[in-house]
């Protein structure tokens, strides 16, 4: 049975081109980029090439890119840099739907005496920039708001927020882990200060990330040691992965438009098909402003883990915001923040696509899903009491 991988917001397959670019630096070119000899120097050159490639993806300058070990490190570095460089300011602003890399660091800093504001989202997972205005004060050290949400794919108005904060001179970081490589990003147009990228979400390997730090932004390193990355991130570089990230960024940039329309078409086919064939299914998140690859669908009155394990029997990999999949007992904080009703929140499934998915993959999901949903509903004590009609944004698909 072949695997149908629809969990690309969790991680992606390393692109073969990326692997090819990395291979020589895992084998024969093993020099240390910090060494004085030519053998190390050629590795250093290759890292700088990757820096240019990553910069180009977001229209930054190469010297504005710091390589890190992952998205979490980039997020942590951005926030901790603000805390270190603005010691008098004790207020942090973020959203309720951030990735744990930001959210849990804010909780941690909250316990250390920082004031933290978690901005709410509406039923469609949209952020209200006006709420940000209210939250801001002279004590605000940094605002950290994700570019696009990992669970729903909803895109936040980051450009608008950046412009407002720019006028007020407030430091702004965005976690663009899910957005980078999936939608156009342009830091020349968007006056934000720091932006997080993670390699394994765009077909580079795991264990590599980058942080964009705009020239002139006061910065404090998170990892302290040697002089690598112009003293902004100590530690011998993860050379092969950096080169892989560079290649992945280049691939993403050159194919961006094409992929957006390809993924959007597949995703919409999947979504429309599921909503039409499975009663009481609803889309979570704003369908007007979403990543092209993400569909978060709730199958009401059944539970997500059960759906996932049944899908697994057909080789289909997806993910769920249900509590049972995570070992926690509370369902997805994102869906809860959106006020998704309990009848739906436990049965939410996220399908996230990549360039390696095909129409055949979508066909298979559409073939098996109605049966799975039916069977689990038959099993459910709520099966009989399901009211007529279904909620959610199903209009344009019917």
């Amino acid at each position, binding site marked *: 049975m072949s695997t149908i991988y629809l969990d690309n917001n969790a991680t992606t397959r390393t692109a073969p081109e990326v692997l090819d670019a990395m291979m020589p630096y895992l084998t024969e070119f093993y020099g240390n980029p910090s060494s004085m000899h030519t053998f190390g120097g050629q590795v250093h050159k290759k890292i700088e090439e990757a820096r240019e490639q990553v910069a180009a993806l977001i229209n930054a300058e190469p010297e504005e890119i710091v390589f890190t070990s992952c998205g979490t490190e980039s997020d942590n570095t951005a926030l901790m840099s603000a805390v270190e460089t603005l010691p008098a300011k004790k207020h942090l602003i973020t959203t309720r739907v951030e990735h744990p890399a930001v959210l849990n660091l804010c909780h941690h800093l909250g316990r250390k005496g920082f004031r933290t504001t978690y901005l709410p989202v509406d039923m469609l997972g949209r952020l209200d920039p006006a709420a940000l205005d209210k939250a801001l004060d002279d004590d605000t050290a940094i605002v950290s708001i994700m570019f696009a949400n990992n669970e729903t794919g909803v895109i936040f108005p980051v450009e608008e927020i950046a412009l407002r904060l720019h006028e007020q001179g407030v430091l702004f970081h965005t976690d663009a882990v899910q957005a980078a490589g999936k939608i156009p990003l342009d830091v020349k147009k968007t006056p934000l200060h720091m932006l997080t990228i993670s390699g394994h979400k765009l077909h580079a390997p795991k264990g590599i990330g980058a942080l964009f730090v705009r020239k002139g932004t006061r910065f404090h390193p998170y990892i302290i040691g040697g002089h690598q990355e112009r003293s902004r991130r100590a530690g011998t570089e993860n050379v092969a992965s950096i080169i892989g990230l560079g290649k992945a960024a280049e691939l993403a940039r050159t194919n961006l438009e094409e992929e957006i329309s390809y993924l959007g078409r597949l995703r919409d086919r999947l979504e429309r098909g599921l909503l039409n064939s499975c009663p009481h299914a609803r889309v979570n998140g704003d369908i007007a402003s979403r990543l092209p690859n993400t569909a978060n669908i709730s199958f009401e009155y059944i539970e997500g883990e059960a759906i996932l394990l049944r899908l697994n029997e057909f080789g289909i990999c997806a993910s769920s915001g249900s*509590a049972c999949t995570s070992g926690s007992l509370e369902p997805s904080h994102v869906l809860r923040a959106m006020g998704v009703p309990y009848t739906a929140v*436990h049965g939410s499934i996220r399908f996230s696509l990549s360039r390696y998915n095909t129409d055949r993959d979508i066909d298979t999901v559409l073939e098996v899903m109605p049966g799975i949903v039916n069977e689990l509903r038959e099993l459910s*004590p709520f*099966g009989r009491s399901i009211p007529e009609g279904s909620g959610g944004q199903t209009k344009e698909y019917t």
Partner: protein
Amino acid sequence: MWDYTDKVKEAFLRPKNVGEIENADAVGEVGSIVCGDALKLYLRIDKATEKILDARFQTFGCASAIASSSALTELIRGKTLDEALAVTNQDIADFLGGLPAQKMHCSVMGREALEAAIANYRGAPIRKTDAERVVCKCFDVTEEKIRRVAMDNHLTTVDEVTNFTKAGGGCGECKPEIENILAAIWSAQPPLKPLKPKGMTNLQKIALIQEVIERDIRPLLQADNGDVEIVDIDGNRVVVALRGICSGCSMSEVTLKSIQDKLRELVSDDIVIQESR
């Protein structure tokens, strides 16, 4: 992905005894859609023998919840109600070759549905009354349930209680209280299983039975406004009388079973408990 045993996977993918029983003799319903799992158990019971002729279920929940429900129905079919009441949540987990620690609450849900159904059959509502204090508001778990599950399963940490009851798994505000409840239980009754003394004389055995009942059992029952008295000890047979709210309680079989379990654990494997009528 959870590390489920093949039996859990099998029971989840091909659950047995699914569905409703029309005009069932007993129905037990526990959990809710808010909490993320719910189980409705239907029983057909032979009135004369109190034998469970048929048991079926409907479950909303994860793979373990569905598998636990299926296991429960397989375990109790053909048993009398009293025999069925002796099925513990651990029996359900064991039947499935074990459940991940974080999923033990699914087996507890099975056990609770069984109690609810039997209470329903016997005409005594087992459902939570207003008098019972809810400790965990996120998951609507009462102090009574925490105590019972903790004692039945030898739970000594808050995390374990969370795995078995969900209490404490939400906002976490109830954790200090769970801690207190555990402290109260285990200060009266050390959770470490002492080695059973070997080769006791009859007199020594009687003395030990009395001691265990005084030290480990009565304080817990008294805390719930119940009590127990020893009426007679004859070899392995211990005759007791339940007092306070325990007497005439629809759950008295459960209480007796847990007393028997405790005596078997701390005194001797062959103890049989009987209620004096």
